[in-house]
């Protein structure tokens, strides 16, 4: 019995999510991105998030955050995320009052509906918010986001 307990303990330690012997599965870029975007949405809205994802939804569906739901269309959503792989579908949400967010620098520069941008630069995650676009959308960001706001 002691041997079995020891073996189970060893296996548990090795497969634990955190710990000195962890064989941790690192997040993929997509998963990390989804986490960051979901956190931004939650911080900006300060209420339950109904996100409409234009593009790949897979990484958002596995997040399992409280108060976080994936909307079926733009109308139901209070936060819209458009990934750079699905720029063409953006037309669907043009008249939505939801907060627009993207990971495409090109789309962010082109379309003033987007208040924020998440992008990778020098292999690091970067976030940028436009102060004027936030103003036009009457959106306030928490104090901790000040470092990401640019004056344009």
């Amino acid at each position, binding site marked *: 019995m002691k041997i079995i307990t020891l*073996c189970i303990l*060893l296996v548990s330690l090795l497969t634990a999510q955190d710990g000195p012997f962890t064989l941790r599965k*690192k997040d993929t870029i997509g998963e990390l991105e989804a986490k960051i975007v979901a956190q931004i949405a939650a911080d900006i809205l300060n209420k339950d998030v109904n996100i409409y994802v234009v593009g790949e939804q897979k990484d958002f569906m596995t997040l399992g955050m409280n108060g976080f739901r994936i909307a079926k269309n733009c109308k139901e959503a209070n936060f819209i995320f458009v990934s750079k792989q699905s720029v063409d579908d953006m037309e669907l949400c043009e008249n939505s009052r939801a907060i627009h967010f993207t990971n495409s620098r090109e789309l962010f520069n082109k379309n003033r509906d987007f208040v924020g941008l998440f992008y990778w*630069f*020098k292999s*690091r995650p970067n976030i940028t918010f436009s102060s004027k676009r936030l103003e036009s959308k009457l959106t306030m960001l928490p104090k901790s986001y000040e470092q990401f706001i640019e004056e344009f």
Partner: protein
Amino acid sequence: MIQTKLLTKKSIIIGTTILFLVFLLASLYVSTIKLQQNLEKKIFETSTNDTTSIARNISKEIYRLTAQYGAREVIQNIKSNTALQKEIEEKLSLFLTKDIKYAYLLYRDRKGIFRFLADASKQSEKAFIDQKFDIDSVLWNKPFNTKEPIFLENRVSKELSVTYLVPIVHKNIVSMILVVDFSIKRVDDIEDIMKKIRYGILLLALAILGFAIFALFQALRYQRSKKDVYIDRLTKIYNKNYLLDYEPYMNLHDYIICAIDIDHFKKINDTYGHAAGDRVLERLASVMFIETRKNRDILIRYGGEEFCLLIKKERESDAVGLNLLDRIFTKVAQEVFEISEYERIGVTISIGVNLNPENQRDFTTAFKLADIALYNAKNGGRNRIEIYAESIEDSSFLTINEIKDAIYDGRLMCLFQPIVDTKTQKVVHHEALVRIRAKDGTIITPDKFLSVTKGTFIARNLTKEVLDICYKKLFLDKSLSLSVNLNPQDLTSETILEILKMYAKIDTFSQRLGLEILESEEIVNYEEAQQNILMLKSLGYQIYIDDFGSGYSNFIYLAQINADVIKIDGSIIKNILTDKLSYLVAKNIISFAKEANIKTIAEFVSSKEIYEALRGLGVDKCQGYYFSSPKEL
């Protein structure tokens, strides 16, 4: 108990081995983490050693280009001076190798936000002037305070391993930092290899776990099967297999060895049937087992109606053991054994005890002495406890088991002593004399084993073997005439009687085979034996009364069984020349026999003088060393 001991020993070995393996794997696993860290450190040191010194030199170069400015002005000057920007970026581009992905200059604005001043990257990845740069750790601020270069580990991206920050100081204030991003592929490779090794160890640990579970399962199965092998099905106590396995581990100092046998068990079987016998065995085992002490004494069904009891000694004293034996003995005597729905009987046991087994070299020898004591208990009238003392018996006596083994191994044999006609001195007959050939080839005479078999089924088996040997001799030599010795039990044994009936149907077998019967109380008082003797006579067998004149001599007995031949006891014959009384006894027996028309044979005729004397007395036949010793035919 031994079962538990054996299994415990095996379990400890298996358990310790698995524990050791698990510990080994866990240590190995931890050591791979440390090994990985050390390897990474070493590779990093080798890969960055040159680069860090170059980075410091380049930072000096950049400082040299901007040395005339103060900390604030330098930023504005670089921003506004395209040529200076280009010159700085050219210097930065010297860094870019396969291990260095990015090299750029950053400054902190008034809000503390990091922004680009220069970037040596190719156009697609190049930052514009003043582009915001999100830092992922407050440590990025450290060079601004300490003015010392630092390494930062990159925790977010797999593409970057380490970032090297070199502060550039203008007038004692850090104006900007030179940033070099290392991407050392070998570190990733090592991490991958280590990950595979760790997974391998994990799989190995799982395999060991699987093996441990399998081994445990097998151990449980083994325990169950061992139980079946060690436990006697009828009595539910240990059997002889258990004793055989336990023997090598037994410390003879720890136990008193007892051999226990049910008195007249054969009679119980013959009278009430084997089912009743089994009930008696079952109940007796239960009665004895209840009296023994759990985890101390060991009760074993040794075979048939014989039990072996190993009583654990307490503080080197025999008192506890003897008291226990006395309790068992009394309880058995008080017990009423139910042999059927309506019948109940009492049973007694005889016990032979060896109080000092440690004086013997091994268990077998020690048990043999308990067996001898048991034999003496039987001989002394049964229903008693006999303790072995050195003077009781010569240990050269064979035990029941040794005799059984000899029969089983075919080491039972017969020597044949001729019987001569007194007048012609020609051999007319042979007496078959049983012997056992020991494993070392020596011949063991019946005085070392016949008395041991008395009252047991071994005696019957022994007679069967002798009859079989005689049958073969008579079959091969039609002119041969033999006589064999039967013990009183043989005359009531269905098996022996059936064999003799079968022989009587073959040619002249019964005429050529005499049956020598020792006169005894058992025959005189047992009518069935007398009837069977008469039946055998009617089949043509000649009945010899053996050792006549010794012990229990009864002339009426001769008339009752209608004997054909009297064999005058050797103790009388050997003294007829020196002892007048012996001479007269012999003379009267011969005279009586002649009157009764019974033939006489004189045994122990060892010299010519004895032979002459016997011839003078008119004895019919003589047997003894004067003519021949017993020999193989």
